[in-house]
């Protein structure tokens, strides 16, 4: 019976909490926000970080000149990195590999998973272009030995080779490999690896800040009604719904 | 001329408060391979009864206050074969274990009641009542107090008609290697007495064997 009373007590307390949710009006909210100081240099750094990480090299260069914000990385390396990324995105994997190796030979030598994924992408491109024989030879000579070295590679390799077994690849269970998203996936993996090798964060900071904002709003929703930002692209404050 | 060995009073060996408790001295008679034989008195109000008991020490780890072995009960009523159990012992060394059991359904009162049945315990009683004996130094005490808890039946099933729910309060004497004990189990008859003597299996002296784990 004591348990019963305990549960009742708990229910009651949650109820009072939900009814006693604090309401913050838009005016109050804006006033509070105005009191928060953000340094301009910090904003500029965040923008620069975004441009650099995402590879907008010309914009970064311009932004540097206009705002005087120094990028935390040699801008020349961005050009190289973007060239690699573009090569993968346009299906020119061999070219991408050579470019990565010119940038830093350690990247692919010490990252077998990335190397495998690039080779896998190369195979996918051969299949896409209908070069069946070449694809088979490539799988045999270049990829099979990697599969022997690692069980999970073998499974991925088998999945990829399965593409050859279907007449209509667009409608086969492994068809997703031919999708453009597969190229993008590989491209972003290379991009991240290059950034890491340059001791740079592989993700820009701005998205994390926005994620943090959404999470914080969700937490706050349970305790208060307040002007919320629902559309991140406009960052408009919406009146609290009561 | 007969040699007289001075028997120092146990009381004088109980040292002062707050000394770092030392590991009790190893006793060769309590080392692995040693055997003991005797009886367990299982008398109840209705009947006088005792069964024969053999004990063998199988493991000993003084640093952790650990001792283990087997106990074999012969002429057990209603059992066709001797019943062998494996037990694990806690040595009351103050460092690892105190006189208070703190489990197995034994209250400090039960503990004191049972320990007090050993004469050798009387010099320690007052201090144990205060703090469970935490401030005692037993490293030079000529008796070793232990709790033996049976863990499983070795050669019979749990349906053998015997229970191992309880445990033994045990006292070992350095001077002659004798072991006395009392079985405690709220659901069994109280104060079943265990009396064991060190054996030497038809030899004219004591013999030793040992193993080393890798």
């Amino acid at each position: 019976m004591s348990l019963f009373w305990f549960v009742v007590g708990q229910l009651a307390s949650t109820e009072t909490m939900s009814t006693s949710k604090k309401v913050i009006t838009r005016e109050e909210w804006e006033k509070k926000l105005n009191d928060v100081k953000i340094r301009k240099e910090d904003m500029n750094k965040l923008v620069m970080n975004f441009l650099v990480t995402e590879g907008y090299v010309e914009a970064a260069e311009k932004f540097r000149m206009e705002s005087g914000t120094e990028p935390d990385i040699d801008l020349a390396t961005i050009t190289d990195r973007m060239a690699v990324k573009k090569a993968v995105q346009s299906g020119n994997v061999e070219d991408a590999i050579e470019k990565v190796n010119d940038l830093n030979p350690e990247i692919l030598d010490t990252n077998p998973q990335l190397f495998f994924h690039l080779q896998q992408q190369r195979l996918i491109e051969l299949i896409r272009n209908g070069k069946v024989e070449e694809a088979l030879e490539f799988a045999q000579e270049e990829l099979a030995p990697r599969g022997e070295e690692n069980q999970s590679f073998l499974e991925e390799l088998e999945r990829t080779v399965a593409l050859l077994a279907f007449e209509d690849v667009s409608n086969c269970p492994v068809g997703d490999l031919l999708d453009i998203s597969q190229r993008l996936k590989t491209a972003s993996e290379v991009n991240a690896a290059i950034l890491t090798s340059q001791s740079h964060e592989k993700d820009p900071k701005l998205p994390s800040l926005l994620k943090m904002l959404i999470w914080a709003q969700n937490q706050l929703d349970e305790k208060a009604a307040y002007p919320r930002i629902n559309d991140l692209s406009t960052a408009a404050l919406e009146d609290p719904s009561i | 001329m007969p040699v007289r060995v001075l028997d120092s009073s146990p009381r004088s060996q109980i040292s002062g408060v707050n000394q770092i408790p030392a590991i009790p001295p190893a006793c060769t008679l309590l080392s692995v391979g040693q055997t003991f034989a005797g009886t367990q008195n299982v008398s109840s109000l209705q009947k006088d009864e005792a069964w024969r008991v053999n004990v063998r020490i199988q493991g000993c780890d003084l640093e952790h206050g650990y001792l283990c072995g087997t106990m074999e009960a012969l002429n057990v009523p209603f059992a066709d074969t001797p019943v062998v159990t494996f037990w694990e012992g806690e040595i009351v060394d103050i460092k690892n274990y105190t006189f208070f059991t703190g489990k197995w359904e034994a209250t400090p009162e039960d503990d004191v009641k049972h320990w007090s049945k050993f004469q050798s315990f009387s010099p320690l009683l007052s201090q144990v009542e205060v703090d469970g004996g935490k401030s005692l130094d037993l490293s030079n005490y000529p008796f070793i107090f232990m709790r033996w808890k049976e863990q499983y039946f070795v050669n019979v099933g749990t349906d053998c008609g015997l229970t191992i729910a309880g445990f033994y309060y045990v006292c070992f004497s350095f001077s002659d290697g004798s072991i006395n004990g009392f079985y405690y189990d709220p659901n069994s008859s109280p104060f079943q007495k265990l009396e064991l003597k060190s054996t030497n299996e038809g030899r004219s002296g004591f013999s030793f064997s040992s193993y080393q784990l890798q």
Partner: protein
Amino acid sequence: MPASAAGNRPEELCERLASVDSGVRLKALREIKNQIIGNRTKKLTYIKLGAVPRVAAIVGDDDSDAPLFVQSAAALGSFACGVDIGVKTVLKSGAFPHLIRILSNQDEKVVDASARSLRMIFQSKLAPKYDFLNRKDMDFILSLLNSVNENVTELAASIIAHSCQTGGEQKALSDEGVLQKLMNLLTGSINQRDASLDAFAAIFRNNSELISKFAGFDNGRKTLGPVVELLKDKYPRTRLLASVCLIVIGQASPCHLEELGVKTKLIPVLVELLEEPGQPGDDAPFTLANFVAGKEELQKLAFDANAVEKLCKFLRKTAVQPKRFEGLLLALSELCSKLEICRNQFHQLQVLHIVIDALKHDSTEVRSAACYCLRSITRSVKSLSAGDFTNETILVPLVQLLRDPSTSVQVAALGPLSNIAVDFTPRKAIFVQCGIVKEIIQLSKSMDSAPRLNAVWALRNLMFLSDKMGKESILIELTLSTLASLICDSEVSIQEQALGLVCNLLDGSIDSIEYAFAEDGKIIKAVARQVKNATNLEVCIQGMYVLSNIAAGNELHKEAVMDHIIPPVSSGGGTPIITSHLRSSDSRLRTASTWCIVNLTHPTSTDASDRIARLRNAGVIGQIKSMVNDPCLDVKFRVRTALEQCTTFGNAAS
């Protein structure tokens, strides 16, 4: 393939490396580099074709231009990456000094390439060592450390991590302010940071003096704080290296780890790293094993952090890489080495069959690690008493390992076998029935002392509480003369185990004592010789227990012991060996010796009074009397027993 179609077959490319046209050379170099990066098979192909010396020639050619230097250095680095034979070939090709030379090239790209390439070489144990007590080497490393080029400072840290070994070198580096420079690298790039953590570990290893000095007045809160901070780093490799560095500090100077309060932090970091793919996850179990080895307190902490559960979980995963598999087994073996709770959990998680299967693994290291794991698991007296391990599922694969091509695996397999041999049940007979004894005895005759020791150890445990049949079957195979020679083995530890074996052999039924006298008393003579001459304490103790066991026999047995411990009157007396042992400062030897006297004067024997007289005349009883207040309780009460027995015969001396 397009590459081969264009005449890019390895043989042709190799040819072109020696072309007079530098453009052709460059193109071939670049092509080879791109083929071998990330591709082990290709590396081996080109190494076989002799490409490495040709590349080395290019890097060594003063006429080469920057692009040629960059490409050749990169290719050499790749050859040296991840393949031992590659490192060997690169070093043999003479490329090393050339790479060092171009470190001071004007072109930054060349410097980068050669520094990277050299760092690959220094990742390997085969790389040459620098001697920091040598001024020239020291100046060189300092010049690298002072470089503004990230790759070069990183190389410097790698060289230190690889080369620094002696206390003298550690001190020399510290005296030159290298620690501070490395500290600065901790705030640099990821690679600089990782390399400097590696170097720290090398400089601090086993050097508590240096650690204290570096830690300074606040016990390292300030100086070592940044390393502790890195335990929370985003990169698993950095977290691992920071852990290794702190473990090294803790092992050399435990108080500092305590002061920094990182002991409890390290365990969860390492346990979490087990989840990581790649190198950090492969190394984590080894680091964890090293950290908790022999430390019960840390094993408990690891247990509380669910380490056993996690390790077992990974063990269950199919197709674990051999290296990681080995690490998982080793970590489990350390965790289960002392605590029964860990062993219990291991059993509950039902992974024993995986460990047993690992005994048949292709990798020598995995087989050994599986043995170590089983050795820890079989340390439970509780399980041994239940006969849990005495079955063919475990014993058969273990015994097969006694014929393993690798001696270290044989030795490792004898570990769990020794433990299982203790088995307290009649099941013990399986050792004889399955021919296991035969295999073990074979190894007890090995020329190599490691398997010999472990084999004798296993036999000693097998002999423990063995029945008459068991003893007989072991002795038939072993023979008394082999046993006698093992008692006098050149290795002290083997002597000790052999004497333990004899103790167990003679214990039990009184007939067993006859073994000591068989074949003209081979055994008792060997034992007596050791008791008289051995300088090792453990050997003396075991030897005295053997004599004590014999002295528990009949009149003839007792007399034989008397003859060995008291010199005949004709020899002019002297201090009997038993008296010197009774006077030992080690209580265990005094105990063993006193037992011998107790048995010799045992009241059930008829001639006890004669022996008491003899002992008294030799001064032994006097010695015993002087021991009535021995500080060791065990000795004190045995002395009492002995003296009481003497009194019983009414002969005790005045």
